[in-house]
């Protein structure tokens, strides 16, 4: 009998916490977020003249000669579809061991591809973030070293001067926060939107 009362309290407690921590908390945070930071709270979507070109926080894969390349990506279909039911792209990490043969082959293939597109760089070592897959699979950034590596190719293929390219990169670079937290990084999608004259 005593235990029945405990179980009843426990059951009611589950319901009460569900209302408080599930509904009330989530609604309060959403309300504050939408009121004060609507751009961020709606996923930082870059929209120009009614077209949504992506989120600042989600990478796209670039392989064209007149675009800056980002981290190695493995896009896939089958996870999401659009409103018409057609496949749309989504991304994931490789989860390969960096000590495995599969990984060594993946690095070599990427090195060969990059070398072929950047003959002017010769045997200069390639920045490590440019030949590796990221943690999320859609890392929107590359390091300043990886951006600088591509400047001459971009100048050759876009008709812009290297200093114009560097100025665009500069605009899309975020420094470590407060000068110390994290690493400097270049937002690849923004660079390419500027190269295309959209942004």
């Amino acid at each position, binding site marked *: 009998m*005593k235990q029945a009362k405990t179980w009843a*309290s426990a*059951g009611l*407690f*589950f319901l*009460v916490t*569900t209302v*408080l*921590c599930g509904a009330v*908390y*989530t609604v309060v*945070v*959403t309300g504050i*977020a939408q009121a*004060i930071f609507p751009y*961020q*709270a709606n*996923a930082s*979507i870059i929209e120009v003249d009614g077209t*949504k*070109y*992506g989120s600042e926080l*989600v990478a796209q894969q670039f392989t064209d000669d007149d675009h800056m390349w980002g981290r190695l990506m493995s*896009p896939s*279909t089958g*996870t999401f579809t*659009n409103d018409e039911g*057609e496949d749309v*792209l*989504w991304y994931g*990490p490789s*989860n*390969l*061991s*960096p*000590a495995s043969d599969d*990984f060594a082959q993946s*690095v*070599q293939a990427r*090195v060969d591809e990059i070398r072929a597109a950047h003959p002017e760089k010769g045997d200069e*070592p*390639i*920045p*490590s*973030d440019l*030949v*590796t*897959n990221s*943690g*999320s699979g859609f*890392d929107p*950034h*590359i*390091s*300043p070293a990886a951006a600088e590596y591509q400047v001459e190719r971009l100048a050759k293929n876009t008709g812009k001067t290297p200093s114009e390219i560097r100025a665009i990169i500069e605009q899309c670079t975020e420094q470590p*926060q407060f000068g*110390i*937290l*994290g690493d400097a990084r270049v937002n690849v999608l923004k660079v*390419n939107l500027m190269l295309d004259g959209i942004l």
Partner: protein
Amino acid sequence: MMDELLEYGIYLALLVALAVPLSAYMNRVMAGEKVAVLSRVLVPVENAVYRVIRVDKNESMGWKKYLVSAFAFSALCLVGLFALLMLQGVLPLNPEGLPGLSWDLAFNTAVSFVTNTNWQAYSGEASLSYFSQAIGLTVQNFVTPAVGLAVLFALFRGLVSTGDRGLGNFFVDVTRAVLFVLLPLSLVVAIVDVQQGSPQNFNEYETVQLLEPVGVDADGNIVEADDPAAVKTIDQATVPMGPQASQVAIKQLGTNGGGFNGVNSASALENPTPLTNLVQCLSLLLIPVACVFSFGRFVADRRQGRAVFAAMFILLLVALVAIAAFEQTGTPQLAADGQVCMGTLDQSGGNMEGKETRFGVTDSSLWAAFTTAASNGSVNAMHDSFTPLGGMVPMVLMALGEVVFGGVGSGLYGMLGFVILTVFIAGLMVGRTPEYLGKKIGPKEMRMAVILCITTPLLILVSATVLALDPATAASLNNSGAHGFSEVLYATVSAGGNNGSAFAGFNANTQMINVVLGLEMLANRFIPIAAALVLAGSMCTRQKVAVGAGTLSTSNALFVFLLILMVLLVGALTMFPALALGPVAEHLMMML
């Protein structure tokens, strides 16, 4: 190099600087005292809760009633969450029209969140509706750390009690922990995350235009758009939306770790900047560290808390240095005979596979050490892609039984098991009856301490054996050879430590693995809770004895050293043969 060292220093210094005042605050909250500002708003809510659930807040429970209450509440949470996940398809707030989960995945996920593990055999953005995430999982993210904190304070009360058999009121302890500690902190962290870029909405997923469309060949592989093998073109991609920031805040603060998205805090949507990385990383260890200082304050001898803190902090530092060194060095496979630049000029350098550019090796190593020291299990880089030994260190931290700060509450009651074991063994060496905090340790207390110490290693070895013997497990592996075994081992270590992080290439969503890991998580959560409460119940009946010249000090450097030794002896030695087959073997082969 100096920048990196400074950043490591900032993380560690802020952690301790914030935990000390929080520990004083938590003791006031758990003692039922008034706190400035918040009490005025929250006490009416608190009293309303007691009225609704029909609990007398002044009733103090003995260990049996406390235990029954904790088990009853957890059992009902388990049933409720299981049902909610199975019924997802017919519940509201499901703009993507996601179906209910299979029974084994729903079981595994419900157990995982009710045990404060947050092991995820699914990818959140592709499998769960906003209802399941916010009303199902987020609620457990709040109440499970509160249950851990409640059990810990019940144990504190047992340790200092002189004859009073009451350990406090379970429902009051959980309510106050949620209202006064977890909710306010989560609100702050969530708003910082949103300000930095984390989404917080109930919209449909966004579909965006690709600058470079891609082709798909007949086998479904992605190829260039102008490739002759392409049978169709795809020009759109998805941006997952949802109430992400609110869930991320509490998943960090409550040592839960279950991400809104499959890739957890590696996703720029969950963890957009180095500042959110700092805030989230500190959040995940803040309360476990504060618990240790709370302990010292509670027993009115802050040196006791500092000694336990020192032992844990030393283990954390050693682990952090090891991970950072292995990851910054990288592997010969990545360096590719000098074709790839591993240096640190204008880039993080080192092993960037599975790491985000904005975090680099420094922030990723910090996170990996913090998240496996705490039983959090969120990640900001893929542990599967760490170097062999860089990935082994997190495994060791978890296998020690999650006592290097560990889970909210659970980490410290686990560590107090080791403290009692150390007192006992040291007592044997000098031939004295073991005492702790002025009370004699008897056979019953020893039995409970041993259960606290060996539950995790035992469960890990049994589960790893079962999965390794099942031929079907091979189909779940993403890597072959020694690293493949590491993937299985990591999964069982993570479930056994109630951690929840993963070598994520491992496909854990099979009936066999869902059930084995589910049972392992259940046992590892509730056996120690029972042991801690039995221990509390028996300690509160023991009379204080006078401190004499022969009493072993439990707050000096010698004791800290003995405690570390004992933790390593039990945790590391039981795991050594298994580690030799996985990460150690892989490292040696890499060097060939």
